[in-house]
């Protein structure tokens, strides 16, 4: 089935070629890392021209289509009216108040966390250098918006820090000589999963009641974990450096392969069912590395063997991200419009019918 090794025969529901709506900014570069706002109204994504810029764009989505040309989010000093550009803006996450938090840096500058909101003028630095030094990366926002956790390389190999919105204070929450990365809050905000570098790769950890606990390790990288209720879904390449699988961990030391040979997104965690949609089921959406199926995306249950195959009619589909908005399932992803096309473009599909 689909060129994937599976423990059981899966039930695959093929729905024919879906009509994806292409969202083009007109900029040169590959589009990737789409991130839905919590209300599904906005989609943030990145465009990288593989030269010196990685820009962040935001577009308003209505009925599965863009309402306007995507708006570039300008890093202060990195493309304003009076600067030469050369900026990096990446790793966007949405705050429940509707703001976008992302890593930004100008040419040769430190990576800092910035804040921007649709309709508001310019991005501003979330935290000052006095509050926390070093390069800041991997922001994640608690579901109530009260805390933002991130990585700073000011200490250790990169430790976790948390910013408390009410008090405007930053405190260190992990301290190790190893690099910590990609923290993600659980749906109730009480726990955080993240990865810690070991000698050969990365292991998945959790932070519960302020204490770091190893969750699951293995050969290679156990990378970019995300919560689904109490489970942690992550990418793993323990079978080989270029062979990426999606795994799920239901407890300490436990892990199970959900699917093998997926197309590893540029930076995203596995896209699991958003909070509020099918909480008892849980789905993960992905593209595959099999070139014969590169135009297809798969939406797979974390609990049984159901798989929905979504034929995008495009090439090299991946970077999938789901949103559940007012009873509508939307899927954002990037793909080449045709074989030999220069740049991956952002697309959106309404996949509600797949679940009916």
């Amino acid at each position, binding site marked *: 089935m689909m060129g994937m090794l599976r423990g059981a025969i899966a039930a695959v529901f093929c729905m024919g070629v879906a009509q994806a709506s292409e969202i083009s900014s007109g900029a040169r570069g590959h589009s990737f890392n789409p991130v839905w706002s919590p209300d599904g109204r906005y989609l943030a994504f990145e465009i990288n021209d593989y030269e010196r810029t990685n820009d962040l764009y935001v577009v308003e989505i209505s009925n599965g289509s863009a309402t306007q040309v995507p708006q570039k989010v300008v890093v*202060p*000093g990195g493309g*304003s*009216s*009076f*600067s*030469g550009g050369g900026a990096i803006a990446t790793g966007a996450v949405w*705050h429940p*108040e509707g*703001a976008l938090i992302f890593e930004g840096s*100008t040419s040769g*500058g430190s990576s800092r966390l910035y*804040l921007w*909101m649709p*309709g*508001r*003028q*310019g991005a*501003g*630095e*979330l*935290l*000052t250098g006095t509050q926390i030094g070093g390069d800041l990366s991997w922001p994640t926002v608690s579901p109530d*918006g009260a805390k933002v956790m991130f990585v700073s390389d000011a200490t250790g190999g990169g430790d976790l820090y948390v910013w408390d*919105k*009410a*008090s*405007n204070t930053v405190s260190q929450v992990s301290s190790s000589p190893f690099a910590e990365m990609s923290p993600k809050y659980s749906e109730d905000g009480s726990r955080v999963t993240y990865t810690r570098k070991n000698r050969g790769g990365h292991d998945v950890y959790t932070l519960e009641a302020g204490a770091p606990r190893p969750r699951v390790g293995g050969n290679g990288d156990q990378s970019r974990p995300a919560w689904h209720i109490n489970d942690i879904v992550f990418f793993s390449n323990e079978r080989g450096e270029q062979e990426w699988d999606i795994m799920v961990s239901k407890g300490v030391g436990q892990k199970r392969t959900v699917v093998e040979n997926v197309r590893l997104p540029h930076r995203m965690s596995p896209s699991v069912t958003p909070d509020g949609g099918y909480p008892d089921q849980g789905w993960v959406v992905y593209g595959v590395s099999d070139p014969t199926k590169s135009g297809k995306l798969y939406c797979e249950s974390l609990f049984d063997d159901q798989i929905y195959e979504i034929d995008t009619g495009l090439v090299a589909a991946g970077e999938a991200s789901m949103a559940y908005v007012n009873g509508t399932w939307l899927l954002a992803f990037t793909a080449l419009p045709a074989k030999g096309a220069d740049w991956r473009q952002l697309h959106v599909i309404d996949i509600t019918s797949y679940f009916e």
Partner: protein
Amino acid sequence: MTHERWMNLPRVAIVAGLCVAASPAAEASAKEIAKAEHVRLSEEMNKHAGKLRWQGVERAYRSMEPLVKKGVVLTYRDHYQGAQAARELGNINQVFNRLQRAEAVEKTGDVANWLADINANYGLVELVIPKSWKGEVGLDIASMPLFPDQRSTIGLAQGRVSERKSYMGLLPVGEYTFADKSFTVVPGGDTIRLELGRKHGAEVSRRKEGERAPFRFTYVGPRADIGLGWTSAADARGGGAQPGGFGGAGTRLGGGLELGVGGAWGVVAQLGYHNLFGNPSDSDGALEDSDGFKARMDMMHMGYGWLAASYRLNDLWLALGPIYSLGSGGVTGVNGLCVDTPESSDCKSLGTSSSDTLRKSRMTGEVRAGGAALGASYAMWTVGPLEAALSLNLGVQSDMSRMYPWTAFAVTLGPAGPEDDG
């Protein structure tokens, strides 16, 4: 000798005339220097902005602002980068002001959007804390906003309030508490005004957009001067039964009020006392007791009233305005014309006294003199709620027959001036 001092007047006039003649050239040169400084500061500002060194941008912008008075026109870019720096440094009021200045130079969508953004997310407030307020007062927000510029603005307002200074400016939209009084800041241009009363608690009012703010003095306080001075009186014009020129040292004491009327401007109203005591003399030298004449000291005692416009330039206080004095004086010796030519028709009223008698005659009478006085003070110390300054006061008054120029060095106590804009 007073007469000799006034003989120097032509020389002073020549120097002043040369200064006036040279001033256009000097002005042009100053303007060129200011323009060159502007170019230098613009380059410095760009360099800092390119490296996101906002303190440097702010410093450059603030250095540019005084150049405007020297004829330099700041550009759109100057104001825009000044606004960027103010935003990064957390002063939304300055952001707003600088954007308005940028828009006055050039209308762009960028600035229009930014101003619209501020108007949509901020509201105007006036949190008024009288200088006499002694109690504690705090400003709290129900939910701290997410955006750093909004948090900084709240921090700025909280800082001023905690120092018992009034805060007039923008606050992010939200629910607040000020001195136990809750209020809501809403976008849309209305101004929320909370003024602490004499009794604890604040009075809340709302002023519609476009409605003029009621006038209020920006600062009020007593102003007192105590000093030593020198006063001289020129020889009376036209002769007659008038004393000759005289002068002497004395004290000058004054007390009154200073009221701020907006910006750096204010009004000084003062009543005081001014005197002089001097040894009698004339063009032939000091007068001494002889032949039954007692050469009594020249003296003058005057009360004065001074009404002046004041201007506060940080620690430099300037005040200029009309002054009127009323008092009495006693001087030994009549005016020089009658001493030299007692038979002159202008001196008939003095009878047939000899020149020597006239030199030593005691003249007493009333003095009423009007004129102008200038005060230049430099604040040096804080004395409770007041500030103390060292002052140089200068004045010229006339009773229509003679001039009374005077100067005094004084210690001046005055109210702290207008609060800065943060």
